[in-house]
């Protein structure tokens, strides 16, 4: 064990030598839109976990799941290997036969939006359900509340959408509609960890919610994600979908935790068929490794600090860019919400005198990273052409987002000198500088 201590001490030294002392150089460095923010603790956990050489989910995964569930005040956190996998597991779980008549069946409709990331919508299609698209507001980029009620049909069974770029959607309306029509509500909380609505954390309103721990997100484990729920039955189903679809819920390296491994009857299998190899769902293998979870444990301890930094950066950017509101639509928080912003979305007004691509090219050429609001209008992408779906009214704002919207970063790695750099570049562009 002395060797282990020595290795971990050397890891701390290595961190300082390799990553410590970084100073932003405005002449050379990019202002990233997002990125991992870490110190020696993440590196030490990673090495510590690798020295266990357990490899698959173990003590760090257990620690992360427990602490993450506790952070959200929920009873179940199910680690998976990405936010997209979390969405897939969450929605697939609601198709389980174990839910009886409550389960989602092929042809059932799920209300969502097209202005977002594809893997919120992809699981709907993959499960042979029918996405119903409604338009969103410019400025807060969440669904138009009035459209939600209009979207209901006799086939509607669920609402599944994201808190766009950290900004909570109108949860009051969504919950009211879900309760009235007995709908499932799934929050794609991948971009909104730490956001609040009516003083309550997003990700805790729906039957299920998802998180992403890709490096761009509020905390990271490289690749990683999580499904959370307070419903213990759904949690068991979600674990099954994550773990090959098996009925057995033993963790890796464990056997017979149920005590009934060889004594149960399933389907038409022989009585006592090894429970480890009994499958109750058409599942996947979407598990994380313990190394990923180890990084996540160190990150989770910093989450509150990260959230505050995001909010500060957002507020500073808003103040510095507010003089340009005649040409830019700046972001606004949904009513009753306190977002932990993923990014700072901006829409170029139609009469601005310049295009979205002109300003983003100028920003990029001045080493400020930009991104479009993900897919813009998902329905205009090749993969989604001709899908079985329903559109309620029009998606005019969604098209505006596709053409005119972009975002810049607010992540905790951005410091005041980078904020000032961003403001300076915007000012130069608005003053007429091009090229």
């Amino acid at each position: 064990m002395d060797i282990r201590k020595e290795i971990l001490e050397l890891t701390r030294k290595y961190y300082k030598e390799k990553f410590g002392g970084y100073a932003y150089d405005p002449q050379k460095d990019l202002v990233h839109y997002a990125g991992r923010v870490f110190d020696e603790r993440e590196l030490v956990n990673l090495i510590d976990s690798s020295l266990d050489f357990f490899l698959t989910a173990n003590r760090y995964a257990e620690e992360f799941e427990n602490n993450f569930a506790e952070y959200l005040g929920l009873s179940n956190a199910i680690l998976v290997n990405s936010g997209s996998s979390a969405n897939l597991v969450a929605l697939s779980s609601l198709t389980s036969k174990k839910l009886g008549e409550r389960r989602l069946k092929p042809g059932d409709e799920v209300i969502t939006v097209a202005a977002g990331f594809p893997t919120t919508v992809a699981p709907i299609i993959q499960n042979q359900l029918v996405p119903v698209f409604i338009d969103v507001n410019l400025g807060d980029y969440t669904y138009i509340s009035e459209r939600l009620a209009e979207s209901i049909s006799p086939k509607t069974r669920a609402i599944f959408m994201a808190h766009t770029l950290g900004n909570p959607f109108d949860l009051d309306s969504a919950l009211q509609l879900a309760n009235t029509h007995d709908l499932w509500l799934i929050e794609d909380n991948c971009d909104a960890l730490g956001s609040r609505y009516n003083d309550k954390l997003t990700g805790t309103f729906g039957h299920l919610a998802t998180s992403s721990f890709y490096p761009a997100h509020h905390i990271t484990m490289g690749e990683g994600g999580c499904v959370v729920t307070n419903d213990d039955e759904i949690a068991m189903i979600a674990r099954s979908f994550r773990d090959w679809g098996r009925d057995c819920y033993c963790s890796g390296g464990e056997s017979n935790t149920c005590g009934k491994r060889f004594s149960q009857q399933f389907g038409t299998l022989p009585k006592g068929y090894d429970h480890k190899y009994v499958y109750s769902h058409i599942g996947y293998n979407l598990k994380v490794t313990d190394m990923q979870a180890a990084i996540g444990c160190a990150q989770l301890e910093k989450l509150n600090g990260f959230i505050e930094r995001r909010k500060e950066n957002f507020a500073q950017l808003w103040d510095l860019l507010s003089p340009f509101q005649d040409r830019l639509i700046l972001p606004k928080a949904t009513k009753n919400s306190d977002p932990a912003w993923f990014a700072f979305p901006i829409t170029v007004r139609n009469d601005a005198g310049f295009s979205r691509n002109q300003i983003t090219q100028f920003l990029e050429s001045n080493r400020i990273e930009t991104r479009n609001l993900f897919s813009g209008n998902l329905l205009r992408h090749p993969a989604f052409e001709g899908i079985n779906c329903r559109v309620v009214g029009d998606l005019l704002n969604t098209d505006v987002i596709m053409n005119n919207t972009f975002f810049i970063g607010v992540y905790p790695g951005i410091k005041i000198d980078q904020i000032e750099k961003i403001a300076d570049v915007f000012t130069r562009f608005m003053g007429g500088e091009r090229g």
Partner: protein
Amino acid sequence: MPNPQKIPCVVGKVCSHGHQVYTVELIPTRPIPRFYSGQFLHLALDVYDPSSFWPESRVFSIESSPSERDRLKITYSVIGKFTTRMESELTPGKQVWVKMPYGNFFIDSKSPVVLIAGGTGITAFASFLENCKESSENKILVFYGAKERSLLLYRDFLNESKKNKNMQTYYFIENDEKYLEDEIPGQLSVEEIFKRIEAPSLQKYYLSGPPLMLKYLTNGLQEKGISLESINIDAWG
């Protein structure tokens, strides 16, 4: 089921009931996760290194109430190598590891239930019964059997539950000569149980106890036309 957790515990009180049957109180070093009445834990006697595999363990029904986050209670009888080790090693102050919660032997309190327990199998119902001591929405019939009267560990506890007018308990005792009013001679049997149930086909049955008892009673219930969907078994194997 909430995320199972591995928790170090310290042995508190150990109570011997005679006939090598013991009740053990475990004090967790941190609050235990939420669990349901009828769920169970794994107990390991050897030191657990969290970076490695879980050591040999055995499962025990959690007897303490789900509302208690700082105490666990289990009961066991010495029947094999592991429980023999427990008998000699579980003394106050010893550190052990538990992982919990597990199991889906949940009792549906929204409908009338028939609980049938043999020996220490009663522990699977303990947590549920604790919550129904004063009252319950629906009728609860408890059929509790043991070889000897002294092994009816939960008799005092069940007697306290008489305040609950919706609960009725019958005791089956195999080896004795004189029987009290609420006692039935012999082993638990479907014939005797059915004499005391109104509309047996409308009940939900929950069985906990030794494997042979479970097999015998399950077959008996099925022969009487009770479907497997209405029979819930806390089976180990």
